[in-house]
């Protein structure tokens, strides 16, 4: 759990851990403190275990806490940790979560911290206002702008506008949702024009890479930043800090 906390912090989250104190802690103590923390801390999402404590009665205590959370705030995204990500216990958990109308997902306890953060991001919502592309660039979709980050300062890349920006936004959103997600040509070709839309898209992508490369005085190769995956589509990958 500590590794998940560390990873959340690295990704810019500010995790708050609810830990009741005292002897003989039961699921009810966790429930009370969770609901109290919801009031006082106003979190963007909640990570919750299905099982609390060693008492058998508390095996599914997390599900009753989930119901209370959703009763309190129906829009609260909740990611539930469970050792029962599959199987009959998972079905019990899922059936219970279906009875609430909130945004609930399950992840098993063996999941890597990376996986937890990706799931949490998706639960919280679609792409945020700004998406970081490695440590070099930042895309501000709301203000239709791409920035280069140098020594902590943001500088606007003026060349990236219109269709190039739309393409970058599409690629960055896919990368944010899931690192391995490829954007197929069919989805990107709507941002290109001319009779040969595939060729037009290729040109736009090349221009985009050149513009981004120029901003950081680099020449991004075919296997860097925006990659054509076996003529299926394109994928954005975070560029390394150093050349």
């Amino acid at each position, binding site marked *: 759990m500590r590794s998940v906390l560390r990873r959340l912090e690295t990704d810019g989250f500010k995790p708050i851990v609810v830990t009741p104190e005292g002897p003989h802690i039961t699921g009810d103590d966790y429930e009370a403190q969770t609901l109290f923390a919801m009031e006082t801390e106003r979190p963007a999402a909640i990570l919750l275990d299905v099982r609390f404590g060693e008492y058998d009665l508390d095996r599914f205590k997390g599900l009753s806490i989930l119901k209370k959370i959703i009763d309190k705030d129906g829009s609260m995204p909740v990611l539930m940790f469970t050792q029962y990500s*599959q199987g009959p216990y998972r079905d019990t958990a899922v059936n219970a979560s279906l009875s609430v109308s909130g945004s609930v997902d399950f992840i098993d306890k063996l999941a890597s911290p990376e996986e937890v953060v990706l799931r949490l991001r998706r639960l919280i919502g679609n792409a945020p206002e700004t998406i970081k592309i490695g440590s070099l660039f930042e895309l501000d979709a709301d203000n239709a702008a791409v920035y280069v980050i140098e020594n902590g300062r943001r500088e606007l890349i003026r060349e990236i506008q219109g269709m190039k920006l739309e393409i970058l936004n599409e690629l960055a959103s896919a990368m944010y949702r899931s690192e391995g997600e490829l954007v197929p040509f069919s989805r990107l070709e709507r941002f290109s024009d001319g009779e040969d839309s595939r060729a037009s898209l290729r040109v736009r992508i090349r221009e985009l890479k050149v513009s981004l490369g120029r901003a950081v005085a680099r020449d991004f190769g075919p296997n860097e930043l925006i990659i054509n995956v076996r003529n*299926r589509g394109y994928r954005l990958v975070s560029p390394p800090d150093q050349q």
Partner: protein
Amino acid sequence: MCGIAGIDWLALQISSKWECVCEIQDLGYLNDQSLKILKFAGLTVTVVGLLLFLLSPLIGEPISGNLAWFIEPIAYIGAVVFMLGSLVVIVSFQVIERRTKVVSGGRTWSQVTQDYFDTFAHDMGRPLRRILGKQREARAVLNETGEVSQHMVTELLDEIENQAPNFRLMIENVRVLVDLEDINAAPAVEPVDPAALVRNVSDRYTPIARERGLELVWWCEPSEFGLIYGDGSALDHMITNLVDNAAKFASGHVEIRLTKTASTFIVTVWDDGAGLVESHVPHIFDRGWTPELSARAEKQSSGLGLFIASSLAERCGGQLLVESQLSNDSSSGEHFTTFTLSLPLDNRTVAK
């Protein structure tokens, strides 16, 4: 289903056709010897009941001389005793049959249990040996020199992290195998977002692929794929096994694609591994088969993943196909293996 008060181990299932089916719920507290005694006691009571019924005109006190023999009180008592005895015999026979029941593939439960232990021992042994090997090496260096290099610690930590998905998949595989033994079980039907499932599997395997120097990508067409009605847990498991297999054999790339037709959705898992020898293709979905078996070499995996994926696909009303090309069979030198999983978009009718 209606239960009978006081008989907690017996439940009567009444189907829509008003058929009563006796189903044994739980007699786990009785050992085999007790069951045999119960069976013979039941037989004895049945015979006594039958004798009472048949001999009632001779041994009973007639209520009226004009009445027929079959309404003698002792005939009723005989009939009740006979029915009770028969019930005990049926129940004990069913329990004995269930305990020694031959399950799918002509194996008994004890053989099935043995199979699971073998699977556990094999699948758990390999990753455990790898972790222990690194750990012992580090400990030996620590004992000898008093310190361990950062490289060694990183190697050990990476090994633990890399083996975690194997443990994860193994636990799930054994659970699904147990489920698959029940040939009457029907797949669950719930609204499922297959794109979300593929994304989750991709998230799980992206760090592993990166560690192995592979590029793992996925996409779906249309991009807004929508929901299907099917068994989400089974679908997750099928895709996981296919991706796990591809990540084992790929040379550099693994692709997962999700598409659909009017009535089915298709998950395609492609890898650029060396490809399958033609003679291996018919066995690829056999339980426990691995390519090493044909070479009499030590198995590198349990050979259960593809068997499970294929069995689950069939259970869910779909199919799993494989297509492969060896590099020396192709003029272009291209080599690949593609698994194509097709499942109904709406499994509600199949499940019924």
